[in-house]
């Protein structure tokens, strides 16, 4: 079984993102970029499934400009066997991304397509579900535990009510939640080895997909600021402040 893992290049989660003063977007010049944290978790899980002998190949793929190859190399250094880069000049939105992944699936025939539950830049939380719809296969989103056996996966999902367990037939789409695992650190020798692993790059046009009508970005603004806080010196002061506000 092959596992296809999506890796999106995003602004590192530690960066405090700022909106450009002209409202045309957010400041990304010179900002640290990383693999989307959820995707790193998805890759870690795929590697563990392979290490348990339940998969033979882990393929990482990313859609974007040539710089996404950095994240693909990191994925290869973590242990993926090969990488696919779908080159686009402009960022794609979830439905187009899902159509691209479907093309890769048709070619590679993986047993699992593993995505992150959400990209921490657009915070859409859509692509995995869309891919499952287009592929007409099961989806197990927000996974915090995955067990594979006999062509099925039993997946525990983080839902508002607690933990839901579903059983799905493979092939299927899984999306990772934060508590699925803790990704491994990349070791220096692995970075060297990763340089020799195959990385295929293809233009989006070569895939023959129709780009979905995209949402038009009108403007970007910083979030409303919360009013300045007040420090209190004692519990009594805190309680009386809360009483004054009519909250107690």
């Amino acid at each position, binding site marked *: 079984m092959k596992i296809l893992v999506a890796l999106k290049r995003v602004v590192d989660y530690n960066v405090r993102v700022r909106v450009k003063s002209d409202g045309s977007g957010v400041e990304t010049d010179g900002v640290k970029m990383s693999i989307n944290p959820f995707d790193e978790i998805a890759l870690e899980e795929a590697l563990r499934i392979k290490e348990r002998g339940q998969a033979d190949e882990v393929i990482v793929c990313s859609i974007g400009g040539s710089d996404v190859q950095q994240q693909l190399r990191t994925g290869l250094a973590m242990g993926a066997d090969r990488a696919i880069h779908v080159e686009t000049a402009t960022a794609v939105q979830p439905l187009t991304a899902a159509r691209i992944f479907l093309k890769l699936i048709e070619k590679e025939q993986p047993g699992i397509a593993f995505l992150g539950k959400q990209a921490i830049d657009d915070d859409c939380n859509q692509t995995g*579900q869309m891919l499952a*719809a287009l592929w007409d296969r099961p989806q197990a989103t927000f996974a915090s535990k995955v067990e594979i056996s006999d062509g099925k996966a039993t997946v525990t999902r983080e839902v508002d009510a607690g933990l839901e367990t579903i059983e799905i037939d493979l092939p299927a789409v899984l999306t990772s939640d934060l508590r699925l695992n803790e990704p491994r650190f990349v070791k220096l020798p692995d970075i060297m080895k990763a340089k020799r692993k195959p990385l295929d790059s293809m233009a989006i046009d070569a895939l023959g997909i129709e780009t979905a009508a995209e949402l038009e970005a009108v403007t970007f603004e*910083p979030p409303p600021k919360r009013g300045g806080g007040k420090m209190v010196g004692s519990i009594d002061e805190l309680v009386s402040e809360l009483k004054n*506000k009519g909250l107690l």
Partner: protein
Amino acid sequence: MSRILIIAEHDGTTLNVATAKTVTGANALGIDDIDVVVFADDPEAVAGQAAALTGVSRVLAVAHADFLHPLAARLAPEIAALAGDYSHILAPSTTFGKDLLPRAAALIGVNQVSDIMEVIDARTFKRPIYAGNAIATVRVPEGGPVVGTIRTASFAAAESEGSADVEQREAQAADPGHTRFVKVEGSDGDGPDLSSAPIVVSGGRALGSSDNFAIIYSLARKMGAAVGASRAAVDAGYVPNELQVGQTGKIIAPDLYFAIGISGAIQHLTGIKDAGTIVAINKDAEAPIFEIADLGLVGDLFEIVPELEKAL
């Protein structure tokens, strides 16, 4: 044609308050016809509750044994089959809506607007990106319906002063047979619901153990509050996952929020930005939580929390 379809979220007997908030979001669109669809094995009770929501003009009750547990793979084609009659299809931005609606959007062939926090006009919306560090205004192109999830913390629940008609409808899709519900386990805490409680008391990594978390539960009980937590507290196993507040947990808007032993990482703050009053208790006067807290108290939570409980 302007007509809105809202996908009801429920547990089989009770309509989730997230649906009432979605109705408020829909009311802001300035479109008169608002339908709510209830997929359930026995929709009667839930359909009745949906019909009472102010602004709802019609409830579609779709009964089928398959709908005992809501599975996206089963429900998305049902929504796609209804889509032709609607200009807008909305669901709450809960784990239910997030799981289901993008699957339906892909079948319909449109991108989704996730986490709508403000309606500008019928096709233009504000939504948070980068963990709430930026707010994007996006416009949905013509040529397909608007499919969107409503950020529930941004909208109050609709009142229950209406009386819409309930129409029975037949299920139109079949069970794909590849996805099976096994079980759902919740903590079934006896306190109020975290997503809608007026007061929430949250604890962080500083609590140190699940036993120590008892002081948070105790303070919450005294105030009739719900208990929440930071991701660090959940990851460490002090409390179950459904208590996580933040970018990847629950986005809440209580009147009063206590952040106790929580540093104030951006991913946590994005979950509480709409809270009325934020109180922070932290031993580190430099903790970022104090930058957004309305009331801050520096000190050791293990001393302060029991004292505070006594003082109330």
